[in-house]
């Protein structure tokens, strides 16, 4: 379980997150929606400790992310994250991209790492691209590669940070299909997205962010179809128009 208690985060004087409470249960898919700059991506980066926080606490399976004595490198193995920019390692083939972290972080043998990587590439539909360098892959393929790379560490949670925002429209589907597949396998996921339709169909719950706070959180269909808050209603109207 991921527990977020009263988290505050600022970049200098710019307050990005102003007191967020949220719980993500095992097996759940939580979608974070809201305007750009509302703090949802930043929250994701805080959850796996890539960004420090100024106040509050985030616990992953009972381990406090920002505590001084927390081994972040170890904790991050539980938390896979995929970014908007695919960030594939350009000097490595698809297979090497996926095999790198299991080999150097988990210290499994080269052969095991390659087998593991091969399995995960097949899983996201890139079985035929093992020896291809990222520059030869489409955006959608690179993003699936990034997902396979995160999955190869066998995380308990997957965090997705606007993973389709940088993609050409015709490539969005293949990435969302991969997310749906992960959901069907029972993966716990936090998905920051601008795709309201996807959020409603795939999310169990949706949290709507506004100005660094959670304005509304609830069952996915309820937040989209029958929002309780006026702000949510206005946002949805703007986005779905």
């Amino acid at each position, binding site marked *: 379980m991921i527990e977020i208690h009263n988290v505050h985060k600022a970049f200098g004087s710019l307050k990005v997150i102003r007191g967020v409470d949220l719980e993500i249960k095992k097996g759940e898919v939580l979608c974070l929606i809201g305007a750009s700059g509302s703090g949802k991506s930043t929250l994701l980066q805080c959850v*796996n400790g*890539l960004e420090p926080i100024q106040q509050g606490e985030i616990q992953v399976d009972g381990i406090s992310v920002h505590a001084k004595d927390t081994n972040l*490198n*170890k904790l*991050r*193995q539980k*938390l*896979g*994250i995929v*970014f908007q*920019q695919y*960030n594939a*390692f*350009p*000097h490595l083939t698809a297979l090497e991209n996926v095999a*790198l*972290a299991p080999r*150097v*972080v988990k210290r499994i043998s080269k052969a095991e790492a390659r087998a593991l990587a091969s399995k995960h590439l097949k899983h996201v539909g890139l079985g035929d691209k093992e020896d291809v*360098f990222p*520059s030869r892959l489409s955006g959608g393929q690179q993003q699936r590669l*990034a997902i396979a*790379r*995160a999955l190869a*560490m066998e995380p308990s949670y997957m965090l997705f940070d606007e993973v389709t925002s940088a993609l050409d429209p015709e490539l969005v589907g293949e990435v969302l299909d991969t997310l749906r597949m992960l959901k069907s396998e029972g993966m716990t996921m936090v998905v920051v997205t601008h795709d309201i339709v996807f959020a409603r169909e795939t999310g169990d719950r949706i949290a709507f962010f506004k100005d660094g706070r959670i304005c509304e959180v609830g069952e996915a269909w309820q937040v989209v179809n029958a929002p309780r808050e006026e702000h949510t209603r206005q946002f949805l109207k703007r986005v779905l128009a």
Partner: protein
Amino acid sequence: MARLQTGLNVMQFVLPYSGLQWSDLPFMLEGAWRTIMLTIMAGSLGTLLGVIVGWLRETFVSFRIGLIPFIDVIRSVPLIIQFILVNSFQSILGLQFDPFWIGVVTLSIYMAVLTSELVRAGLQSVRPELSRAGRSLGMSYWQGFLHIRAPLAIRTALPGWIGALIALTKDTALVSVIGYIELLRAAQVLINRSNEALLILAGVGLFYFVICYPVSLYARRLERRLAI
């Protein structure tokens, strides 16, 4: 060194203006060997030091700012003056190093400054998001450095570094100003004696080419192999 000096005296006094002889070959080869040794020693020491300094400058603001005067001075003052300064400095300190080592130290520092600039440029060329991606997979700073940043930085820095190495090979000739007889100085000695300037210089030029060309060739092949 002593042997060469005596050899030179003997040659100058006993055989003034005599033509080239086969017995001059060992003398030239010794000079060539010294040029190669200077290049290898200064090239590796300078590169090692340059990688460390480049990393320090890229990683810590204090080094970035603090080292600027040194870098500027070393890059701007002609090498030939630097040899003389370092040589005089050690005399002032009462030290007596072999000119070979004075040469190695001066050339290494020069090479280190050039290399550190290239290392810095290389590291800057790696998108920070890639390091972040590495960290998000549980990699430590050094794991990320070793497997992500360094291999990518090398690709950027390599062509410039090869250029610096080839320039260094030729710059070893300047060590002669502090009395060290390397290839070019040895050639001058023979020219003074034999008046065969064209032949000797062409031969020496060819020799420098023979040292440098394989380096360029190998670099070009390496670049192609590392291309992404």
